[in-house]
């Protein structure tokens, strides 16, 4: 069943991805991530000494500050901050630098759909740029369920508003194992099938959700490859004399 998307993409096609790292000079790590017209800038400062009052001093603490493109900070921004904080806490190795705080600042440059997944991807790349120790990367994708039950990936803002439901899914990235027994698996399923984070909006049936999960997993392998290629490229030499 074909669906007409306004920009002519097919059901499973993602928008063009672009990512650049080390774009801010004062930040310890920074990255800009864009998926089509959605663009997010992430900066990482840390680890700094000391944790906040209610946090556990035996572990590192991650603080997220989300700045929208326009308007005041409200409940939506607080919710995104909390989701991002908990997602990043689950991928960073918190026991390496105890009693420190790492701040992640997110600035929305343009919102054209799939904003939270772009922010998660940008934050991961910024953490890599800053050298924060992590277990694996998080790969985030947005899946929309149309009224006909069809699932499309990476919607634009118009598509998000028209569809009956959408889901933001975050998976761990694909592991290329050098060991002969292949990548580790839990309960017979490979590690990259597990969900780190899932946020849904709107009404969908339970089967639609599982279908979204499958499509999301397939897309996350493409995103993982993009991340791997991007990270393997040499960073540009910032010295003009070089």
């Amino acid at each position, binding site marked *: 069943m074909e669906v007409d998307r306004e920009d002519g993409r097919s059901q499973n096609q993602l928008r063009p991805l672009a990512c650049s790292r080390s774009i801010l000079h004062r930040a310890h790590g920074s990255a800009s991530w864009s998926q089509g017209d959605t663009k997010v800038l992430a900066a990482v400062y840390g680890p700094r000494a000391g944790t906040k009052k209610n946090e556990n001093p035996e572990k590192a603490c991650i603080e997220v500050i989300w700045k929208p493109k326009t308007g005041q900070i409200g409940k939506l921004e*607080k*919710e995104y901050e*909390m989701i991002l904080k*908990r997602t990043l806490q689950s991928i960073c190795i918190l026991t390496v630098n105890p009693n420190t705080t790492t701040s992640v600042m997110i600035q929305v440059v343009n919102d054209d759909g799939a904003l939270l997944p772009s922010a998660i991807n940008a934050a991961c790349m910024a953490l890599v740029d800053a050298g924060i120790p992590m277990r694996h990367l998080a790969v985030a994708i947005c899946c929309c369920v149309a009224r006909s039950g069809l699932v499309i990936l990476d919607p634009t803002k118009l598509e998000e508003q028209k569809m009956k439901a959408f889901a933001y899914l975050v998976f*761990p990235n694909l592991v290329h194992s050098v060991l002969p027994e292949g990548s580790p698996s839990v309960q017979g399923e490979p590690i990259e099938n*597990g969900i780190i984070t*899932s946020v849904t*909006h709107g009404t969908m049936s339970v089967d*639609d*959700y599982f279908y979204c999960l499958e499509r999301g997993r397939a897309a996350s392998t493409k995103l993982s490859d993009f991340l791997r290629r991007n990270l393997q490229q040499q960073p540009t030499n910032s010295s003009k004399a070089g």
Partner: protein
Amino acid sequence: MGLPNASGDLSTEVEVDAFRRLFPLRFFEKHLLESIRPDARPLGRARDTTIALGAVASANGSALAKIGSTTMLAAIKMEVMAPSIETPDEGCIAIDFHMPPICSPIVRPGRPAEAAPVVAKQLSDTILSSGMINLKELSLVSGKAAWMAYLDIYCLDADGALFDAALLAAVAAFSHLEIPVVSLNDDGKIVLSEEQGLSDREPVNKEKRKVNLGSIPFSLTCILHKNYILADPTAEEESIMETSVTVVLDSSSQLLSLYKPGGAVLAYTSAIQDCIALTRQRVKELQKILEEAISGMEVD
């Protein structure tokens, strides 16, 4: 309290409490090995739930919901306002969730709880997208007047599963809501009619009516820890095992929300299916409890 050699004397009790405070994860894991939790619940069972309708007499609709010790008070006030230009025949619902310092030692007067805006937003999204309330029912005079329902939910005791209790309280308050009688006075403004049959003005709606509820959403929060799935956690369990999954289903088994905000444990398909199955059971329990509360009120 779960340990096999608990005798009556004080020193053993003090040791159990000390162990619980010093090594909370080991304390819980000892219980999980026996498929039970410290409050003697099996892993898949939620705490005792009660709903009391009409808790706030001055509000148009109110309810007090308790899941175990978690207590939520929901109240709805109705006000007449002009509808927006884009939706001239629809009313409006404003949902707010408050965590006053009474609910938990972590919440202090100057510093609002981190969980409050997040739960408020989740509640708002869930209730508005569930289709439980048809906004066109809240319209009075198309283009000129419509009802605005202010739903306020106060957490009186925060002992885990805040979203579940808040959603239950909100749903119960809506099922208790009675829209007051109003009439149009000579200036063209809507006023509350105190008594029927007294005024010579034509009442805009004839009698206090209840709102028709569409499909009602119910939720269940589960904690994932290694291979265990614990339904309806207490605050202690939530603080030790941080990975939680909240599933919201409505009465026709449509998935309204599957919310898993990060967490060290990854959720595989089998775990999600188990959570959804536990939520389906819980939806049936909650539907029964809500119906009993409503029919209890009607008898009065």
